[in-house]
């Protein structure tokens, strides 16, 4: 990591995060730091706790404790619907396109929470596939287009931190390439992005740093420029 980045302000600080679904204890003391303008990935096998970490940030797990600070504000204990209003946009793993809403309605659904969000023409420029599809039922789009729509609707809101949960899952390589181009453009625009990925080849093309998770906690942090030296270690972590 270039030294310059460390002087940037902290966007997200997660300390000793514990999370529970009912009786099962899923996260066991997660520590993660994300600085403004960074793209950080969470890598790890299925069930390592990546998605749960994201859901904990949004407040949609059964119970959580520890500390999650976003721009200095503590999120644990905050009412669920206030968290996104601080400027956090969430793109869930299952994409969450609403079948009873048209593409336009899906796009316009999340309320604007801050000024400075992207305009609809800017969004169409980023995702040309969505243009002219406004009246189509949301779930009639292809998987890749639904993923683009799920990202697009967050960009309107002015959120500065975007949580992307497995944006490439189940998509064709050509679509993954398009999503990658879009994420890089978002980074250039100054968005801070936390990305859950199984596909670390994709992650390596866009991320600044990688957190590796195993069994509910972070076991390693690898800066992207040291990825090559750490390949063997990473292969062991991910079991690939």
């Amino acid at each position, binding site marked *: 990591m270039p030294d310059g980045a460390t002087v940037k302000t902290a966007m997200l600080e997660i300390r000793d995060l514990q999370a529970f679904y009912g009786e099962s204890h899923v996260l066991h003391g997660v520590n993660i730091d994300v600085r403004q303008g960074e793209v950080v990935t969470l890598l790890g096998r299925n069930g390592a706790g990546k998605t749960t970490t994201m859901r904990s940030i949004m407040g*949609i797990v059964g119970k959580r404790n520890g500390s999650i600070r976003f721009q200095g504000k503590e999120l644990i204990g905050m009412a*669920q*619907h206030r*968290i*996104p209003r601080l400027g956090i946009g*969430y793109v*869930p793993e299952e994409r969450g396109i609403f079948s*009873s809403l048209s593409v336009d309605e899906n796009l*316009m659904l999340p309320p604007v*929470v801050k000024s400075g969000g992207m305009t609809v023409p800017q969004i169409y420029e980023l995702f040309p596939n969505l243009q002219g599809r406004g009246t189509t039922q949301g779930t009639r789009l292809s998987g890749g287009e639904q993923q683009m729509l799920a990202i697009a609707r967050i960009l309107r809101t002015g959120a500065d931190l975007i949580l992307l949960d497995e944006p490439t899952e189940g998509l064709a390589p050509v679509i993954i390439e398009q999503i990658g181009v879009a994420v890089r453009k978002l980074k250039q625009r100054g968005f801070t992005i936390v990305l859950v990925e199984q596909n670390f080849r994709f992650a390596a093309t866009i991320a600044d740093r990688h957190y590796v998770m195993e069994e509910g906690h972070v076991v390693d942090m690898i800066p992207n420029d040291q990825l090559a030296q750490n390949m063997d270690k990473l292969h062991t972590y991910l079991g690939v």
Partner: protein
Amino acid sequence: MFDLLGVPPQVLFGQLLLGLINGSFYALLSLGLAVIFGMLNVINFAHGALYMIGAFVAWLLLTKLGLGYWWALGLSPLIVGLLGVVLEKTMLSRLYKLDHLYGLLLTFGLALIMEGAFRHFYGVSGQPYPIPDALKGGQNLGFMFLPNYRGWVVVASLIVCFGTWFAIERTRLGAYLRAATENPVLVQAFGINVPVMITATYGFGVALAGLAGVLAAPIYQVSPLMGSNLIIVVFAVVVIGGMGSILGAIVTGLGLGLLEGLTKVFYPEASNIVVFVVMAIVLLIKPAGLFGRER
């Protein structure tokens, strides 16, 4: 005058009008049930009792405070809606994490308590409620006589039904409602206060029942049992239209009212059961209902 299949047109159109009026009430009530079921996943058995309370509030406003029909038309749905908000906040909202059956049992119990209370204070004989002066009299349409008040009920309920449909299917607020019906957790994760939306939806749904009660007061007697007489048919309407379907509730409500009217003309013996026969057939052929989506 000409006859249709041996039936004088006055009889035919008279029954069709009655059917249309019943259908208007079915539509208003099943619309409220559909909105509530869609958002809360609760089968609101208290709907008939709240319809009855809507009519009683109108009657009480008139007899105790001297406030007439037009006041009641605004105030009564408001009062019933607020009662719904209180019921949702204090009781129903505690049951969402449990099986749907608990919501059904709670609202069924509430209905019994509300009806029992009104029975205790007002008996079962029913109280008359006068037609407002502006809507007295009627029109001779040539083929039939149309009482003004009945025409007004049909028009008013159509306006309210299609206004509600428009608000849900074509506006931004409606988009929130549809989205929250599908995936409340994600809508909450976009920064929308879903619990408040749920409370408001229940309040709105039962306010529609209150409005139906006011509209019904001058036609039927204001009686503690008026809701339970109607609600069973209304549930059949909701099942036929498809649980949670807005348009299904409206179209099926009006359609079945008319069908009942026609049955009264051509085969009166079956008029009380025709709705249930249709329900059985629809459930056999399309279990999700005419307008419902398979879940």
